[in-house]
């Protein structure tokens, strides 16, 4: 999923913001969209240069565009005049802290989804972060796949409408009647299994991590040590995929799960 020529890390502090997207040829850009993963423009506000460079590089490798800002004020300035899909904001920043950056943006009516990165990984910190206007919260150290999955969900959320019926291939989930069918065959699900499938189908084609499932389906924000989620998934899988030629619920190695049509 390499996109375009190798791109130098473009630090915003180098005064000119060069959107990598604009450097791409139209075909490259179309390719990026065509792979089922729209190119996202991200702003990473992070004062740890190494971490920021690593992130920018990793995002570029999967075809996204990432700009960097090294402190809160700079980040705020760029978030104010740039068109970004998602902001990735470190909580502790020089000059202006991450929560204030997000608070200021929200105060000015800018609703760009923001994910807060923080070394303070406790429950109440997360609550504070979300209260300040953040849309998601990820404690450091995090895995890139986790961050990527969350960013993509955040970017998609904007402009996505809430459908009443989710469809992936021949699998259908009716949110109103709480009915799930595959090839018109009714599938009997426990309430929690229904919510699990609902979340997966809402983000069909996107990687959903175990932590995201635990947070959104169970509303738990702790690490349950054992991979309890895997067992729930395999139960769900046996209900929706067993006996069908085409599996829909896929395991994404090292990242999480995804419901999608095809391989």
């Amino acid at each position, binding site marked *: 999923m390499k996109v375009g020529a190798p791109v130098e890390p473009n630090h915003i502090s180098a005064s000119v913001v060069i959107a990598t997207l604009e450097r791409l040829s139209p075909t490259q850009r179309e390719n990026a969209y065509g792979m089922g993963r729209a190119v996202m423009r991200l702003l990473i506000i992070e004062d740890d240069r190494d971490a920021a460079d690593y992130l920018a590089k990793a995002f570029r490798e999967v075809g996204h565009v990432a700009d960097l800002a090294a402190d809160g004020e700079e980040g705020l300035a760029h978030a104010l005049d740039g068109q970004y899909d998602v902001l990735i904001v470190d909580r502790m920043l020089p000059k202006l802290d991450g929560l204030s950056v997000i608070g200021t943006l929200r105060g000015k009516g800018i609703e760009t989804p923001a994910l807060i990165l923080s070394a303070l990984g406790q429950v*109440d910190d997360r609550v504070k972060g979300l209260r300040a206007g953040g849309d998601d919260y990820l404690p450091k150290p995090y*895995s890139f796949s986790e961050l990527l999955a969350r960013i993509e969900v955040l970017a998609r959320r904007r402009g996505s409408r809430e459908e009443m019926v989710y469809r992936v291939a021949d699998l259908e989930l009716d949110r109103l009647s709480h009915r799930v069918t595959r090839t018109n065959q009714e599938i009997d699900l426990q309430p929690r299994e229904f919510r699990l499938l609902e979340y997966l189908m809402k983000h069909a084609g996107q990687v959903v991590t175990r932590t995201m499932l635990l947070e959104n389906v169970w509303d*738990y924000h702790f690490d349950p*040590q054992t991979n*309890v989620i895997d067992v729930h998934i395999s139960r769900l899988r046996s209900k929706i995929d067993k006996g069908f030629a085409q599996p829909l619920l896929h395991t994404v190695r090292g990242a999480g799960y995804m419901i999608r049509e095809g391989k």
Partner: protein
Amino acid sequence: MTALGKLFRTTAFKLTLVYLTTFVLFAAIVLVYFAWNTRRLINEQITQTVDSEIVTLQDEYDIGGIRRLIFTLDARARRPDSYLYLLTTAAGEGLAGNVGSLTAGVLERSGWTETAYRKLEDLEQTEHHALAKVVQLSGGFRMLVGRDLEERDRMHDVVIGAGRWSLAIVVILGIAGGLFVMRRVLQRVDAMTATAQTIMAGDLSGRLPIAGTNDELDRLAGNLNTMLDRIEALMHGLKEVSDNIAHDLKTPLTRLRNRCEEALRTAEDEAQYRTALEGTIEESDGLIRTFNALLMIARAESGQARDNMRDFDAAEVARGVGELYEPLADEKGLTLTIDAPAAAPVRGNRELISQALANLVDNAIKYAAPDVALPDGVRPGIRIEAASAGDHILLTVADRGPGIPAADRARVLERFVRLEQSRSQPGSGLGLSLALAVAHLHGGDLKLEDNEPGLRTVISLPRAGPVSQAVAGDLTRLQPTQAPAGGSDSQAG
């Protein structure tokens, strides 16, 4: 200067000074009062004796006329240490007596007067002072009877002098005593300071000296020593924990490093490198998990999560956690039963309590192997209960696994402690520590009991949250009031 300067700056010195000033002031007042009173007493005595003398002389005059009076007066005046007498005619001519000269005009006025006088026999001598009474006798004679005041004045001087000296001695002794006391206090305080400094320098085993006088300094030193004991114990615990951390993190770190090294040495293609890298990521995720758990425990122990407390239903938490773990238990061949028929409202941090309960269930699933030989009638499985008991709620996880010997029950609550048989299982040895820390954060407790057979872990939490601080001392007292009815059991799955 420095030693003296230090002395002057001490509280003891300032107190002594204040005390001394007050004392001297009061002593001076008492002395002045005493001097004044002595003087008054002497005056009173003089007037009394003079009055009676006058009465006697009046009688003499009344009996024998002026002649007899003159005779008596002369006789009396010649006695040693006599009164002062003067008898004159109406015109002021002296008839008898021992007074040579008087302050002018004294004789013209009757009654008491203080006058300067000279004795008849030594007119050139210095003036004396006397308290005298002048009476008018029938026939125009005037008589003065008085008493020299030298004695009174000398007495007064003696009293004042003595007073001055005693005050001076009081001041000197006071300062000296104060200095002495201060030195002693200062010595003890210095000794305490010196010990404190060695403690500050890192030697936590030092203790403040106790003089054995049971005074306030001893009490202070005793309390500080108790505090030091506590600090030392805490530091010891901390050191143990960090040793454990070092040990527990060293093992996975070594594994991590070996894996990398081995991959570098032996891997031949990309797939092998990939496998090795995935392994290292997994290993480091484990490390991060351990760190997170440690931080969580530290946060719970320091009480930082107290501000995030709300009211919620513990029964619902039990059902939620049970439902989360049910498939996992099922996969291991264990039946997970949730017994939470009635609402168990409690005030606390729902997230943390859920996590604590999840840890207990996780442990139960890990260690309660379904193939353990059980006595007849006992079914393998795990049971989660939530119930109210008085002003507490109880969250219980009971399994039919090997259990924990009574002797080890306190130990397994410590960080990183894992019993031998559990070493083979994945885990950090922090699950129970976190559950305990969460229970303590809420003013509750965590108890490990025998499930006969198996392990029964009970989290008891005060309903009102940590504010009421009602810690359950004896859990047996707090057994659920309602017997678990078979019909209310909800079998998840």
